[in-house]
């Protein structure tokens, strides 16, 4: 306990803790509506098609803002962006309690998607800016645990409130207040950049930037695309023109990887319970727990990825994604052979590993450290917007594509082809990751392995600051 208190006496951990809470609330937002849907459907008399529309509009809003989310984050700063998304969470959440038909619900879901789409770039940029490369992987892995814990906890909060009060509307009214302490924490703990924080100590700044970097740079141009000389920039940043951010093969490959990996992981977790009931003939309760076991695998995967990347792989990021793609493809390919009567322990093991593998991807973990290192922390917002857009497009097409792949047989629906599609997405995501430059070895990681551990010649267009 004392160690934890000591840890949180450092400003960077206070920033990380607040960013974690904001990301957690973002996922509460997404999952609370899903958890209450059975009640809302009955209350508003919604059809399956209308329900699909309501869910679709959230993803559409979220995907549409991604190209702008990074720009706004870099323009107005992550603190203000984070505050706006949490404020929007609180206000839109209570408005959900007053809907009377599915059209209003869909409109509010669209607004939710738009508001929440700005959070990931803000939280990621803060983590990338406040942590040095040596511990950035672990810090960001901790940040990402929020998206695996929230889906596990939320139903145990919102469903009992609805059951006790007799209406799902009270769940929204109560949850709307969750945003307020987070706004207070943002106000108190978050500062956009470490060197602008009056409460930070010199020792902590040395840990974040290194002494040489602190001596060299005192600039005030926080946008690395607008600086012309290195001295204009604050510590930890390097000049990164727009061409380097957007005409960048690594960002393009991460866009592709994000598309394939999120298509597979959203398609899988959404359809798992239906697959369990219809193909494996499991009881609903057991079939539903297949999704939970997948989230548990993701939680373990995210935590382990940061430790492995920082300590074992010495701050290399791409090997984790290569392993994740292969693991995901192999496990889902194996699961495609499961039929009725498969031992439940075996199914749990397969979907735990599938969830674990799915978290070791450029949309699951380590994406902020990687973008900060291949570009610069000040460009994480804009470049991440592109990557998340790829992922959200994959999520949007996942549902209709999966439905089209399910074959109707005399014994019932067969998901074999859908699972093979997910496994293929794992392979395609792996291939995208194989083309990514690993900045620590200045070439692709596979190239580094094949050449017997020789470093390559890749260099950014402007010099990297000393760590």
């Amino acid at each position, binding site marked *: 306990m004392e160690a934890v208190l000591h840890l949180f006496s450092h400003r960077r951990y206070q920033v990380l803790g607040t960013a974690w809470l904001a990301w957690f609330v973002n996922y509460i937002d997404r*999952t609370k509506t*899903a*958890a*209450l*849907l*059975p*009640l809302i459907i*009955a*209350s*508003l*008399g919604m059809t399956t098609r209308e329900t*699909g529309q309501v*869910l679709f509009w959230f993803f559409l809003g979220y995907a549409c803002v991604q190209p702008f989310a990074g720009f706004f984050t870099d323009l107005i700063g992550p*603190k203000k962006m984070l*505050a*706006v998304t949490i*404020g929007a969470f609180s*206000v839109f959440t209570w408005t959900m*309690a007053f809907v009377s*038909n599915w059209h209003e619900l869909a409109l509010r879901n669209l607004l939710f998607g738009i508001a929440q789409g700005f959070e990931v770039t803000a939280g990621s940029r803060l983590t990338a800016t406040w942590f040095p490369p040596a511990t950035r992987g672990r810090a960001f892995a901790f940040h990402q645990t929020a998206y695996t814990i929230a*889906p*596990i906890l939320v*139903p*145990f909060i*919102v*469903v*009992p409130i609805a*059951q006790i*009060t007799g*209406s799902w*509307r009270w769940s929204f*009214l109560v949850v*709307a*207040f969750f945003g*307020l302490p987070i*706004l*207070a924490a*943002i*106000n108190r703990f978050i500062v*956009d950049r470490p*060197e602008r924080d*009056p409460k930070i100590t*010199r020792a902590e*700044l040395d840990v974040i930037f290194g002494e040489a970097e*602190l001596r060299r*740079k*005192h600039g*005030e141009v926080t946008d690395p695309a607008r600086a012309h000389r290195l001295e204009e920039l*604050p*510590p930890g940043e390097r000049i990164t023109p727009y061409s380097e951010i957007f005409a960048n093969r690594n960002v393009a490959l991460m866009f592709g990887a994000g598309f394939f990996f999120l298509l597979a992981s959203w398609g899988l*977790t*959404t359809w798992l*319970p*239906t697959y369990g009931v219809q193909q494996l003939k499991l009881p*609903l*309760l057991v079939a*539903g*727990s297949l999704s*939970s076991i997948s989230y548990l695998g993701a939680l373990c995967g995210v935590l382990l990825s940061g430790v492995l990347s920082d300590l074992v792989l010495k701050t290399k990021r791409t090997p984790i994604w290569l392993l994740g793609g292969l693991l995901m493809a192999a496990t889902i390919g194996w699961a495609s052979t499961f039929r009725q009567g498969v031992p439940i322990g075996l199914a749990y093991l397969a979907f735990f590993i599938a969830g674990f593998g799915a978290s070791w991807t450029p949309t699951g973990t380590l994406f902020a450290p990687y973008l900060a290192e291949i570009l610069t922390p000040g460009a994480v917002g804009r470049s991440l917007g592109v990557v998340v857009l790829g992922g959200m497009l994959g999520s949007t097409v996942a*549902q209709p594509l999966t439905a089209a792949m399910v074959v109707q047989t005399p014994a019932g629906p067969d998901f074999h082809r859908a699972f093979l599609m997910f496994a293929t997405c794992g392979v395609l995501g792996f291939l995208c990751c194989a083309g990514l430059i690993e900045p620590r070895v200045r070439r692709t990681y596979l190239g580094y392995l094949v050449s017997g551990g020789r470093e390559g010649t890749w260099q950014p267009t402007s010099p990297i600051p000393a760590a």
Partner: protein
Amino acid sequence: MAAHIAHPGSLILALAGPAAKMRGVGPANPTQDFGPLWILAIALNVINTVIVLYYLVRIWRQQEHPVTGGTAGHP
């Protein structure tokens, strides 16, 4: 769409059984659903929104600058 089926929240409902499933549904009209607590619901929302606006204005007005010429002023 199976997203709501996928969610663990549905499992709690499944566990609770058909009678419990109906509990928490309520009428489509929010005024009827809240009943005599309608005023309380509105009051909670007003309080919530006022606090949100207070923090947003406060955070929006904050300006950040490097502390005393870069980092020289840090202890």
